[in-house]
């Protein structure tokens, strides 16, 4: 693995970055889906009547207990079997998004439960409805408390986007495999470059979340890591 071999990776960088962009697209899709569904599931788990709350818990339990790869194959090939054709990209967003929703629900549920009952009581005493109390008092606090957990979830799902490789999404690892097929001597430097790209993305992302955290920070309302 001499310098010369490494130099041969440089011209391939645009292709790798193009692949990495697909990872980022999957990431954005799955995080947003996971956020919406996850917050919803957590609210149901905490506030909905028993049977509904139980269903929400069963949902999160399923998606936390099944490997990403199995979910990816289930969504991509399993739906196809019933004539529902979705692209590999969409299958990746859905499978990883629902999985992430289960983890985000867990993070958010913990935050919801850690808010003292007095906060809701004070809101109700002002005349806010139950929904109003949740919306204006509980949610803003719980979202802030969740930020630390979310930054962990971000790092973990960012890396998991590579698993979309398994169902044929042309993301960065698959791009690397294509390039590798043209010149096998490039294998090691190629994969190490991909690893490096992820290191950069992880730290950049965590830095951005850290900034957001600082901006949203409220004295007396710090999330526990």
């Amino acid at each position, binding site marked *: 693995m001499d310098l010369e071999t490494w130099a041969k990776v440089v011209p391939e960088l645009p292709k790798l970055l193009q692949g990495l962009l697909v990872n980022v697209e999957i990431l954005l899709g799955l995080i947003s889906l996971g956020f919406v569904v996850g917050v919803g599931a957590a609210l149901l788990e905490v506030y909905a009547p028993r049977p509904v709350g139980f269903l929400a818990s069963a949902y999160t339990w399923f998606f936390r207990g099944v490997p990403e790869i199995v979910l990816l194959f289930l969504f991509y090939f399993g739906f196809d079997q019933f004539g529902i054709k979705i692209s590999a990209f969409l299958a990746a967003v859905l499978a990883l998004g629902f999985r992430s929703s289960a983890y985000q629900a867990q993070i958010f549920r913990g935050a919801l439960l850690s808010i003292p009952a007095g906060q809701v009581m004070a809101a109700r005493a002002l005349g806010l409805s139950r929904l109003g109390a949740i919306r204006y008092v509980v949610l*803003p606090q719980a979202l802030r408390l969740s930020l630390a957990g979310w930054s962990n979830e971000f790092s973990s799902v960012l890396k998991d986007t590579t698993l979309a490789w398994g169902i044929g999404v042309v993301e960065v690892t698959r791009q690397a495999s294509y390039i590798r097929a043209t010149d096998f001597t490039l294998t090691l430097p190629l994969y190490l470059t991909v690893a490096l790209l992820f290191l950069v993305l992880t730290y950049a992302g965590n830095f951005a979340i850290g900034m957001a955290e600082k901006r949203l920070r409220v004295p*007396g309302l710090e999330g526990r890591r």
Partner: protein
Amino acid sequence: MPLLRVEDLHKRYGHEEVLKGVSLTLEPGETKVVIGPSGTGKSTLLRCINRLTEPDRGRVWLGDLEVTARGADLNKIRAQIGFVFQDFNLFTHLTALDNVRLGLLKVRRMGRREATERAMAELERVGLKAKASAYPAQLSGGQQQRVSIARALAMDPKLILFDEPTSALDPELIGEVLSVMIELAREGMTMIVVTHEMGFARSVADEIVFMEGGVIVEQGPPEVLFRSPKVPRTGEFLRKISELYGEAG
């Protein structure tokens, strides 16, 4: 017509009967001080009045509006009854100004400008205009409690319920909260105050209510209750309280 009428309230938690038929009335502008040993149901009584806790039996009227009526618009009723908690319960994620403004914006549906002006005025009234942009964690206990009084006042309540508003405070901070409350009483606010501050009770209360074991044992004007209580237990309790907390306040 009395401003508040409470009739035969009962409340039970499991096997424990916390309220065993409590009745009282409050005229406009009146201040009633409720005293009694801890665990007697004082907080439960206050919470039953605006139905933060659901009473098992009994009725409550605010003016001619029955609070305990089936289908009563609770949010609308609660907006007219201020509540000040022992541990303040300021909204942790909001500044002092936003704490006072939230009810105006979201319950009274006031415009932003008007709400801000009103909230600032209330903060000024409790002497905390300068702290408008501070978060609860940046305020002392006494300041937090004054903000929570401003939060209640901003809603133009017909009545304010105070649940041991100074019990969580360091002794040197009690005075600033009491003086705000004294001022309110002087301006004619109708209030029920659960407190152990006998100095406050003596000088401000129109009537003192002594509760024990889920019932009202005795009630009457402070000078009568302090000098010649009808029930011996009342005198005992008053003596004990005065020893514990002193007469200052």
